[in-house]
């Protein structure tokens, strides 16, 4: 098993290699955390794992790649994203994540980082939207540019507090709608987000569930969470991916990427995390 893992490592490029080693480490740590939990000390194993990885965060490799992607000329129109307005003006990435989702005048809609990136990559660089969406989540065979860009833009708000204003009326509508959706039960298991994220100290199997109705816990989930390097996936995953994952656990059909629903929920989550210091990309199981 270890030998085959090592063999796979050799076939991968440098970035993936680091990711792969981290995955092995995470697997080991999650086993350790399982043991720790069976000894009635939940979270300890995981906390140690997170700390170890935070000191040498593999997600930084995605941040670097995202930065290069942002500034290079790409796509059918051979343009960089330096004219992309993420809310603070063309090309300004510093602090942009701290104020997303927000209302954009050109699209007349509230957008999160990922739906805004889609807009820029289509309008400025000429990429086909469907093509971008089909590559939104990286696989072992194919990197996702969006994951790298989100890691870069997210980390460019590091050490700033999350600061969603809801100053535009449609931002408030998105927030209020997201809040309703957070409590909305449906599907063959009657789940709402609230079912799993409404109480402190709860677990599904061995996975700790942050209580998103509590300020500190939602701040941790959002401002030190997503984009996150996911050890079990060996790549950086985004908030859209996290929501798809929870949606999958809820037994709902595949969540459309950058759907209004996902932006509304993100608006609710990010606003609720206001004040939390951003430290991205996070590191997760």
């Amino acid at each position, binding site marked *: 098993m270890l030998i085959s893992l090592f063999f796979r490592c050799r076939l991968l490029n440098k970035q993936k290699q680091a990711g792969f080693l981290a995955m092995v480490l995470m697997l080991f740590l999650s086993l350790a955390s399982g043991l720790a939990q069976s000894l009635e000390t939940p979270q300890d194993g995981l906390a140690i794992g997170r700390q170890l990885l935070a000191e040498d965060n593999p997600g930084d490799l995605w941040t670097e790649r995202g930065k290069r992607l942002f500034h290079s000329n790409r796509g059918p129109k051979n343009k960089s994203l330096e004219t992309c307005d993420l809310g603070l003006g063309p090309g300004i990435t510093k602090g942009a994540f701290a104020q997303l989702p927000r209302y954009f005048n050109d699209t007349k809609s509230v957008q999160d980082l990922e739906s805004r990136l889609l807009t820029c990559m289509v309008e400025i660089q000429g990429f086909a939207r469907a093509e971008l969406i089909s590559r939104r989540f990286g696989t072992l065979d194919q990197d996702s540019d969006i994951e790298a860009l989100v890691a870069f833009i997210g980390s460019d708000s590091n050490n700033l507090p999350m600061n969603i204003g809801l100053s535009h009326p449609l931002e408030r509508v998105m927030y209020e709608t997201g809040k309703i959706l957070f409590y*909305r039960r449906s599907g063959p298991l009657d789940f709402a987000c609230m079912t799993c994220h409404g109480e402190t100290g709860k677990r599904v199997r061995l996975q700790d569930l942050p209580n998103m109705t509590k300020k500190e816990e939602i701040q941790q989930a959002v401002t030190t969470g997503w984009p996150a390097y996911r050890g079990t996936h060996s790549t950086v995953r985004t908030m859209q991916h996290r929501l798809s994952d929870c949606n*999958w656990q809820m037994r*709902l059909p595949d969540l459309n990427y950058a759907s209004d629903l996902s932006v509304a929920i993100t608006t609710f989550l990010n606003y609720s995390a206001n004040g939390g210091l951003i430290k991205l990309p996070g590191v997760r199981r």
Partner: protein
Amino acid sequence: MKAITDQWVRGYRLGAIPLLLFFSACSQWTASFIDVRSNAETMVMGAYSATPELNQRAVQDPSQKICSLMPDESLTQDQMTFVTDAAKHSVSYPNSGHLTGDWKKGAELVADGTGQRIVNGQIEKLARNGALCNNCHQIDPKEVNAGNLGPSLVGYAKLRGRSETVIRYTYEKIYNAWAFLPCSNMPRLGANHFLTPEQIADVVAYLTDPQSPVNAP
């Protein structure tokens, strides 16, 4: 099938366009009049592009609607009665008439946390779902991989006995948890056709049989 999907999607778009126009034309002052609840439903309709049958999963039944309480809300007496009565009426029993089955089959079901998840429009495991119990409950004292969303059920029948009443309660609780506690976080596994009556009887056996590890001395 394709035509139906297209129609379904178009139906949503047609609904959304006037709404969007409405938004953008005079968003500054209309936003405060937007009914966020129906806005939420419109978004749910637009969030999924699967078959109408799968999309239907995101549509709420009357009890789910009632049970989607916001933080500042609590159930009224009428709502409580509605949800409890609907749950009581939903329960059906195995054809055999036996509410306990094979505890060993039950053990497998209880530990199995999969079933009905959808990837790329495909449902995992059509033949048999897991019962998901260990996702939320400690049941076998030796099981390490158990969640705590629900209370521990270790020693279930040692604590409660295995009278007719206990067996019936256990069966009906699993069939439809809301018959006893409206809107609880436990899914209505039988009523939602996640588990068959026979599977529930197997799980009841697992919880109550003296041979089962759940009731180990």
